[in-house]
């Protein structure tokens, strides 16, 4: 990773012109769960940008894992992603990573959020998934919210295609709740969770202050309350980022 990092960071910086704010909110040591909103379909620029930015900022010595859907890791880029610390989204994997003091980044919205229509770009929608909070409480690790904007403009996402996913049964067979419909490079109209060539949309990422769950919510935190508060603060930030954005793609 040390060898690949400078060039990949250069490429990502040139293509997406990322604006990354608040990296210092991530603790320099110890386990931490970074929780992000998911954007940009299979290309998910915020995933790569945050991975590279965190590794650049802390150095590759700071262990950092990202949780991803099994299908992503089985794709042709899976081997490269594994080199950068991407592991299958599974509570046991996340728990093991936290046990060794790593930064673990999770995008709870998964395929539900990542394929939301482009006009819902400024909405946080994690689909009610709260497993990550149970893990954070169980492991007593701080949560660091990470809000990104711009990924949904790398293509024109038209529909999640959840009805299609149910019709073809892939919601059960592949654990995919979406069969997205989008207009993207290079194929034009595209159906299914296929990779696309992302437009060079400016991506803004704002990392918020860490939340120490037991300090804020007491010894026996209410998961629903934390979830509601977390979504509120992330939505407020995303709305502010959207307000500052002058033009789609250009930023």
């Amino acid at each position: 990773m040390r060898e690949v990092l400078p060039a990949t960071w250069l490429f990502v910086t040139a293509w997406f012109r990322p604006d990354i704010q608040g990296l210092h909110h991530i603790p320099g040591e110890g386990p931490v769960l970074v929780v992000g909103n998911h954007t940009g379909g299979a290309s998910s620029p915020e995933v790569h940008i945050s991975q590279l930015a965190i590794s650049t900022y802390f150095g590759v010595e700071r262990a950092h894992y990202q949780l991803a859907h099994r299908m992503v890791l089985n794709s042709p880029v899976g081997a490269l992603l594994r080199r950068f610390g991407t592991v299958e989204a599974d509570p046991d994997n996340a728990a093991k990573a936290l046990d060794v003091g790593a930064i673990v980044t999770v995008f709870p919205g998964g395929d539900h959020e990542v394929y939301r229509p482009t006009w819902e770009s400024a909405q946080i929608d994690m689909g009610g998934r709260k497993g990550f909070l149970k893990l954070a409480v169980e492991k007593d690790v701080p949560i660091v919210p990470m809000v990104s904007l711009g990924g949904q403009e790398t293509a024109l996402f038209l529909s999640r295609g959840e009805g299609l996913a149910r019709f073809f049964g892939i919601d059960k067979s592949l654990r995919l709740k979406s069969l997205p419909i989008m207009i993207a490079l290079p194929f034009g109209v595209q159906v299914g969770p296929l990779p696309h060539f992302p437009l060079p949309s400016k991506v803004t990422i704002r990392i918020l202050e860490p939340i120490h769950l037991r300090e804020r919510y007491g010894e026996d935190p209410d998961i629903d309350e934390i979830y509601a508060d977390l979504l509120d603060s992330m939505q407020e930030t995303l709305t502010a980022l959207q307000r500052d954005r002058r033009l789609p793609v250009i930023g």
Partner: protein
Amino acid sequence: MRIEARLPVAATPDEVWPVVSDPCVIGALSDTFLVEELEPGSKPGIGTRYRALLRVGPVPVGGNVEIIEFNEPRDMAWTTLTGVDHRLRIRVRERTEGGTWLTVRFAYDSPGLLGVVADLASFPTVRSAIHGLLRQMVERVEGDHA
């Protein structure tokens, strides 16, 4: 990549040294350098460690560094322990015509062929940061001893 910048200072080496030998003072001089102590309260000297980052692009780049040379009032150098490899050296030399020559050398290397491309791309920004840092050091010393 290697960058060297040198400027005369209207002050003696002993007057220059306190400003250029403490990494935290260096960090406070410039917006492009971020330096913080790893062991709060430690004094600069061989083996003292800091977290040193340089603003290049959207994310500050650097890592943990350790002072490897501390020759009062002549040389201070640090090298990286973790993060992106770099070395910083500051030389303080008396000028025969009076005053001091202050030299900053900064070297950094990224591994691999693509790393060279990344280094070349960042070179103008890094060079500008190093020259800016040197100017700020000189202004600070001359301001203190005006």
